[in-house]
């Protein structure tokens, strides 16, 4: 069954209101030569490193199958495990809140921050809070949110949007980062160069005071373990460790699909995630906490469990596999489309192949960008091959394309639908196909030069702007066969007469 389309564009991801369709946004991105160079360099580097890290494990495919099975089982019994998680978080002294959508999650967080008597928070990089537009919502409530992940800080200081799940500032090179720091960071050293170590040191000095004085920390979580109510954050810089240990109050906003039943399950994912995302055998910092411990870390812990379209996706037999995603971003790094466009064109905090199947499911397909996302792929399959939880992204893309087409069927006239309806009639009928081939041969001779067609009318001009099209030959294969070997039977193999 088709889920009901949401009323306006992106009520679940307010930051991305009014984004243009993918082809329109991509046109600008593709024309930006600096962006193209930055992306090509970054994605190629990490692609090669990932292949090396994955190649070290002989049982990679078994791990991948296990991860898929664990996630599928958990999603099939999500009701059980969510309640178990809530019970165990509560037992360990934490508080659990349930948020149906972005607005509810943001309101819960803002209320908790005010209750803690704070007017600013330090944040660990979190996809869930990017999804809900938490920073913007807090700002509207007079609460400042400071991103403490280096790349996320660069994006925040640059008044920009993240363009990659793991490396939000992948679209910026170090010269551009230096400019942003000098312009936006009051305490940046005036002699700052674009040396990566110096850039990192400047950010560290900038963030240190904020860590030490923060009352409230906000995080997401990579995993939530139901059997003990424990949360897991996997990171590289140590900023996450400080955010979840230094403030008195910790608020974690976590999608309901992040749950794992047991600690045994976590082992599989800790083998898969770092190698898939940063090409490391193990990430530098893994923080795990269970409720509160007097005298050690936050005294007040709140878990906000976020739906925001996830249960709608869960109800879809093909689409639900996207909920297995562990946000490693391996699919972005191998995607030929992402490599040329970067993340902004996807109009969502979830870019790349996984974004193209997650965003239209979480937000519905009523907006131009969401209706265009399933088509933003060549279906090359590189994403499926690297996915550590074996999400068949091409299958889901093609399936969602069908939903987009079907949603428009009963509506207004569409030139594309007319073309596909007519070509469908021709391509299922040998006689019509043969007639079309004869017509094409005549037409081809009129427009072709040296066997190539250099210009076609729209929408095919999109092809011939940069590529020639082949001219139809004077004789199709079937015409040649009929002429030279025509005695053979026509139609299907004559096991029985078709007359």
């Amino acid at each position, binding site marked *: 069954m088709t889920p009901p389309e949401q009323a306006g564009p992106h009520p679940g991801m307010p930051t991305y209101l009014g984004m243009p369709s*993918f*082809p329109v946004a*991509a046109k600008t991105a*593709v024309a930006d030569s600096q962006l193209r160079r930055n992306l090509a360099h970054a994605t190629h580097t990490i692609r090669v490193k990932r292949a090396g890290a994955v190649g070290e494990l002989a049982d990679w495919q078994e791990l991948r199958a296990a991860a898929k099975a664990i996630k599928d089982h958990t999603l099939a019994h999500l009701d059980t495990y969510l309640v178990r998680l809530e019970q165990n978080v509560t037992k360990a002294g934490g508080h659990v809140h349930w948020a149906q959508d972005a607005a509810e999650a943001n309101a819960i967080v803002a209320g908790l921050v005010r209750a803690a008597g704070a007017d600013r928070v330090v944040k660990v990089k979190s996809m869930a809070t990017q999804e809900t537009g938490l920073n913007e919502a807090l700002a509207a409530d007079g609460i400042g949110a400071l991103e403490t992940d280096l790349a996320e800080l660069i994006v925040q200081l640059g008044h920009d949007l993240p363009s990659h799940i793991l490396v939000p500032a992948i679209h910026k090179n170090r010269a551009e980062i230096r400019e942003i720091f000098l312009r936006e960071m009051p305490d940046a050293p005036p002699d700052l160069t674009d040396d990566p170590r110096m850039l990192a040191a400047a950010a560290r000095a900038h963030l240190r005071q904020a860590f030490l004085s923060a009352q409230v920390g906000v995080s997401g979580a990579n995993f939530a373990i139901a059997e003990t109510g424990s949360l897991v954050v996997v990171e590289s810089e140590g900023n996450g460790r400080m955010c979840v240990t230094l403030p008195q109050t910790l608020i974690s906003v976590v999608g309901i699909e992040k749950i794992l039943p047991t600690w045994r399950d976590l082992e599989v994912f800790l083998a898969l995630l770092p190698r898939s995302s940063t090409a490391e055998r193990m990430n530098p910092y893994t923080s795990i906490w269970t409720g509160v411990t007097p005298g050690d870390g936050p005294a007040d812990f709140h878990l906000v469990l976020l739906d925001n379209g996830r249960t709608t996706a869960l109800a879809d037999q093909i689409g639900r596999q996207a909920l297995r995603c562990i946000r490693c971003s391996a699919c972005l790094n191998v995607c*030929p*489309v992402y*490599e*040329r*466009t970067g993340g902004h064109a996807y109009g969502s905090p979830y870019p790349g192949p996984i974004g193209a199947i997650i965003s239209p499911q979480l937000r519905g397909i009523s907006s131009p960008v969401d209706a265009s996302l*399933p*088509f*933003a*792929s*060549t*279906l*090359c*399959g*590189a994403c499926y*091959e690297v996915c550590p939880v074996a999400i068949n992204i*091409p299958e889901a893309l*093609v399936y969602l*394309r069908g939903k*987009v*087409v*079907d949603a428009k069927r009963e509506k207004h006239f569409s030139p594309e*639908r007319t073309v*596909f309806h007519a*070509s*469908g009639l021709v*391509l*299922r*009928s*040998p006689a019509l*196909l043969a007639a*079309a*081939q004869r017509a094409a041969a005549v037409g081809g001779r009129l427009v072709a030069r040296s066997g*190539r067609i*250099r210009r076609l009318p729209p*929408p*095919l001009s*999109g*092809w011939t*702007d*940069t*590529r*020639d099209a*082949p001219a139809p*030959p004077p004789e*199709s*294969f*079937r015409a*040649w*066969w009929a002429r030279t070997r025509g005695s*053979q*039977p*026509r*139609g*299907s*193999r004559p*096991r029985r007469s078709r007359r």
Partner: protein
Amino acid sequence: MRIGLFVTCLTDTLFPDTGKAVVTVLERLGHRVEFPAGQACCGQMHFNTGYRREATPMARGFVAAFGGYQAVVTPSASCASMVREYYPALAAEAGDESLARAVAQIAPRTYELSVLLADVLGVTDVGAYFPHRVTYHPSCHSLRMLRVGDAPARLLGAVRGLDLVDLPDAESCCGFGGTFAVKNPDVSAAICADKVAAIRQTGAEVVCAADNSCLMHIGGALTRQRSGVATMHLAEILARTEDTP
């Protein structure tokens, strides 16, 4: 073996020489090739663009045309993977049990040319001669959907006179993607530009693949750039001999 040739609508209409080459190679190896004239299109373009309903009658046409064959050969890894990977889903979705039964029969016996030759028939030397510098683009569907492995490379490696050169970043997509090339022309062209640059870097005279769709895309850019590099389907190289170089 009596083999049904599924030539595909693209090759039938635009690249008939590929179809003739498949017939030449298989007959040279002593097989009987037939072209059931009831065939048309496998429906992949419609299916992949979201017109799944329109693709179902094409699947019915395919199984009607090829139902009686021991083996079906096609010079397209992409169309072969449509039949093998997606026809079962299409039949299930249409709730058509007789189609599902026919698909279960014929899909596993539908082979891309290099797989039929190297893996099913166990032949790598097909008696070909092609004294040129060639690079091979492993099309995405051959590589990642159909998983033809090194079958094309083994076949090309046995062609006398052929100098096979590695294509840098070979496993990257060419940017065709069917209707993607028209719906997202800017991105498609950008991907293609890098593929063409890699091909030209090899110094090959010919770029070869197991899919005319990718070759049409790559070739469109190569001729626009007046690069002098030709595109040839694998079958056409395998059909060449000393007598017909």
